[in-house]
């Protein structure tokens, strides 16, 4: 009973094979990490699953409560609605997701309004609650994110994504550009929010530690192919594929 499924995805960028017959499934409340180095196809896979790009062949299926059906059948508008209401996408760079000249509260409220909320007082109240949930002082609700630190901006993006209570969230290196001390805080925040809200997550990361902390299951990609998959701790502690062994052995001991 998968919530999301990809079947036989193929994608070619010129002469580069980004996805080579990739199939995966994701269950409700499951956290799946896709790991691999740059160019392995992991971000292409994420964007394909999230409906941001199309593939040369293969399809992505999603269960909106009536069994799996291809998201391509939704049409552009239907897909947009799904992405806005039931899905969320957290980018590595919050500047790409946030509107920097709109207040923190406005950034959160916008998504709510896109989902149909209208009452200004309620929206403001919910926005304040979400700022608190991501550990931003609610008194900064009228401040502009361009004055925020990188870590705060990322936390704001998380609030703006989760405010509509999606059931599935895609994350692209959510701690990628941040200092190590800031990373720990974001990771802990993501970990507890994901658990509390019962989210299903597809997470792309090149950081094995992030995958170990957050993910139930792991997919290892190289040159557009899935080379290994399984329980996170099993794949990391007993890696079978040569490439996974290389990835694991390259991590500095903590």
């Amino acid at each position, binding site marked *: 009973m998968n919530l999301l499924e990809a079947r036989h995805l193929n994608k070619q960028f010129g002469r580069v094979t980004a996805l080579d017959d990739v199939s995966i499934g994701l269950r409700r409340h499951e956290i799946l990490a896709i790991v691999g180095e740059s160019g392995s196809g992991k971000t292409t896979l994420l964007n394909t699953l999230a409906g941001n790009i199309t593939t040369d062949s293969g399809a992505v299926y999603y269960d909106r409560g009536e069994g799996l059906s291809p998201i391509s059948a939704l049409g552009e508008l239907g897909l947009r609605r799904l992405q806005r209401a039931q899905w969320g996408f957290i980018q590595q760079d919050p500047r790409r997701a946030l509107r920097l000249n709109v207040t923190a509260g406005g950034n959160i409220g916008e998504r709510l309004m896109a989902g149909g909320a209208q009452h200004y007082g309620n929206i403001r109240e919910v926005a304040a609650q979400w700022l608190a949930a991501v550990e931003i002082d609610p008194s900064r609700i009228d401040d502009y994110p361009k004055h925020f630190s990188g870590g705060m901006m990322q936390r704001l993006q998380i609030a703006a994504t989760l405010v509509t209570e999606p059931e599935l969230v895609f994350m692209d290196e959510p701690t990628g550009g941040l200092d190590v001390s800031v990373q720990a*805080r974001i990771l*802990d925040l993501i970990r507890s929010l994901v658990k509390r809200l019962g989210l299903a997550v597809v997470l792309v990361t090149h950081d094995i530690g992030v995958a170990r902390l957050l993910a139930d299951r792991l997919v290892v990609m190289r040159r557009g192919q899935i080379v290994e998959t*399984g329980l996170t701790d099993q794949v990391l*502690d*007993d890696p079978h594929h040569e490439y996974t062994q290389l990835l694991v052995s390259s991590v500095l001991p903590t």
Partner: protein
Amino acid sequence: MSDILIQANRLSKTFTLHLQAGTQLDVLHDTSLTVRAGTCVALAGPSGTGKSTLLRSLYGNYLVDEGEILVRHEGRMIDLTKAPPAEIIEIRRTTLGYVSQFLRAIPRVTALDVVAGALTDRGTELTQARARAATMLERLGIGPRLHGLPPATFSGGEQQRVNLARAFVCDWPIMLLDEPTASLDNANRDIVIELMREAKARGSALVGIFHDVFVRDAIADAVLALEPVSKMRDVSSTALKNEEVA
């Protein structure tokens, strides 16, 4: 036969080290194990004979190449070697407890919540989970002063005891213990022996590695002596190349 909680049949496990020219290590060969409710089996044998490998395989942390690992989960025997990841996660949540020597600290989570988390994961309400966690921490000599702090800053011994508290705060039907008393002082060692005895008295099945013979004698009902299987097998570079092509 319904009192058998673990039945491992004819397990074999070979590690292939791709980064070391495909060197193969045969660690388990035709190993079997039965553990009944209310008993403890100790894994023994010289270093390198696969004690940890066997224990980790019983948790689904390592994959065996051959054999089956039947675990009693909610009244049914389930073969871990064939169970999908989601089912293994569920079995680990309620049936299989694993105690390692080392705590994997999570940033910012307090000692109390590290321990209480094991209970809330299984559906216990938070206030009650914290109360039980506090009692267990104190039993293992971690006083209230430390409960509100993240264990990352604790000494090695304190971290180990937080880890033990996390393991023993739950009533696991099956407990896998990897050197639970290593580097503990005698007083704490005795407390852990007591906790293991209580688990047995509740009907839990225990499998453990105990280098300390005193602990082993105090808790084990049977000893599975593992013997070295292996000579290292070096795969020639030609064979490796063929493998890569294939």
